[in-house]
């Protein structure tokens, strides 16, 4: 018997052992574990066990004021909206099981598109299964090889992904910088197609774009303009059509992108336009064609909600009051905010770092208040933010309670 046989196996250590496709996530896994090791309640694993109203829920066992949803107009529990959904569920079933261009267009899909045309006073509306897909589909389809997309660097992920899915040349400019945008438009080779992409409200800091000036510059350079009004629909502008309406330049916007998952209170996305050839997009836009259409109950609730939002001016006025009160109150307490003045229903509280941001988030949730913790890479300039989004259904009293919880938590964590 040779010596070797009685020796235990000693397999050579292989290079790259234990590494696989998931290894790229190791730094993120480590950061998350580090954060939770301090005993902090996981900000990205919150469960709402019961939803009591647009502004209240039982979260992780506690009754909580909701200040981090996009339920701006509080439509989720509107009696007419729920009734419309129930009726559609009964009459048309739970789902369409098909694409909009095959068996997935029901009467309800046409009705919600009609409601959108009336809401925006535009000729065409195309409904997608989510807001994300609306940006993905429209951007990647209309800007093709050889065309140029000029966009704000702080654009939403769905806009960037739409750019990535298409073949156009992508040219970003500094956030809200009119001159930087103009320079880039000026340098685009003659004859190339141009699309400028802007947002009404930028959701991280809650700031708005100088759309009137920017749209005018884009038009002067022969560019088409797409504006994402996801966070302004239903609230900003006289008819709730968004920042472009408020600044008087909606007529010059070629495409408005929006969502049903914020003020409308359900899920889905859309694009409205006056372009005479708009309808052809239904046949060539892949994120529209190659996915199932929205369930009948969802389009029925969306149509009812959109029609009610047309007459929501009292709610809009109350929401502005809430936004102003919260902004002033937080500023007076000594918190650093994303904007000097309230510009939308989003108020971003800037945290000194992620660690204290997470501690502050936890102190708020234990005090009965839910806000969004936003961290890089979703945030501009690597900021950690506590994002508060107000609802038209928050009462004056509730806003005062919210300020009280913020004061207590801010003092306990040592931020104010």
């Amino acid at each position, binding site marked *: 018997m040779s010596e070797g046989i009685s020796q235990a196996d000693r397999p050579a250590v292989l290079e790259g052992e234990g590494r696989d496709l998931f290894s790229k996530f190791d730094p993120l896994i480590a950061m998350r574990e580090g954060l939770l090791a301090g005993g902090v309640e996981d900000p990205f694993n919150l469960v709402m066990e019961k939803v009591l109203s647009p502004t209240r829920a039982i979260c992780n066992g506690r009754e909580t004021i909701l200040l981090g949803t996009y339920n701006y107009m509080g439509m989720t529990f509107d009696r007419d909206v729920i009734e419309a959904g129930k009726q559609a569920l009964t009459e048309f079933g739970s789902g369409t099981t098909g694409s909009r261009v095959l068996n997935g267009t029901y009467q309800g899909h046409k009705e919600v598109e009609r409601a959108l045309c009336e809401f925006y006073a535009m000729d065409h509306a195309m409904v997608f299964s989510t807001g994300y897909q609306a940006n993905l589909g429209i951007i990647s389809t209309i800007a093709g090889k050889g065309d140029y997309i000029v966009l704000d660097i702080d654009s939403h992920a769905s806009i960037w992904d739409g750019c990535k899915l298409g073949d156009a*040349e*992508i040219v*970003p400019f*500094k956030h809200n910088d009119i001159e930087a945008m103009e*320079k880039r438009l000026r*340098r*685009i080779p003659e004859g190339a197609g141009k699309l400028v992409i802007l947002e009404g409200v930028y959701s991280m800091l809650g700031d708005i774009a100088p759309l009137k000036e920017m749209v005018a510059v884009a038009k002067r350079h022969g560019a088409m303009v797409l504006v994402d009004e996801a966070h302004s629909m239903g609230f900003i502008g006289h008819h709730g059509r968004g920042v472009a309406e408020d600044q008087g330049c909606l007529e010059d916007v070629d495409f408005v992108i929006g969502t049903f998952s914020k003020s409308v209170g359900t899920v889905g996305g859309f694009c409205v336009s006056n372009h005479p050839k708009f309808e052809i997009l239904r046949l060539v836009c892949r994120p529209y064609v190659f996915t199932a259409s929205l369930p009948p109950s969802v389009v029925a609730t969306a149509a009812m909600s959109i029609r009610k939002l047309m007459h929501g001016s009292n709610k809009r006025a109350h929401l502005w009051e809430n936004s102003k009160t919260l902004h002033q109150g937080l500023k007076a307490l000594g918190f650093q905010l994303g904007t000097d003045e309230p510009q939308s229903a989003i108020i971003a509280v800037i945290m000194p770092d992620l660690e204290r941001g997470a501690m502050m988030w936890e102190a708020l949730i234990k005090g009965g208040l839910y806000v969004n913790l936003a961290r890089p890479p979703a945030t501009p*300039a690597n900021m950690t933010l506590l994002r508060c989004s107000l609802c038209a259904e928050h009462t004056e009293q509730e806003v005062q309670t919210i300020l009280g919880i913020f004061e207590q938590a801010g003092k306990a964590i040592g931020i104010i």
Partner: protein
Amino acid sequence: MDRAQVDTTIRSLIEPFNKKGVAIEDSTSFANDLEFDSLTVMDFVAAIEDEFDIIISMNQQAEIENYGQLVDAVTKMATDK
């Protein structure tokens, strides 16, 4: 404009962004050696674009990993203009 002139100009433009004072060679990489994040890239690219009156789209930026490749690309764009 020849490559040497472009090189001199970009060398002066990169200075404010080269916070750690890394020695710049043709092989110096923006992501690894200079550790540029996406916002720094945008500001640096904007400075070059304004200086040479060109557009460097993100599609073109994806092909540029190191300093030498940047000087080559800008030289070509400034000449073709």
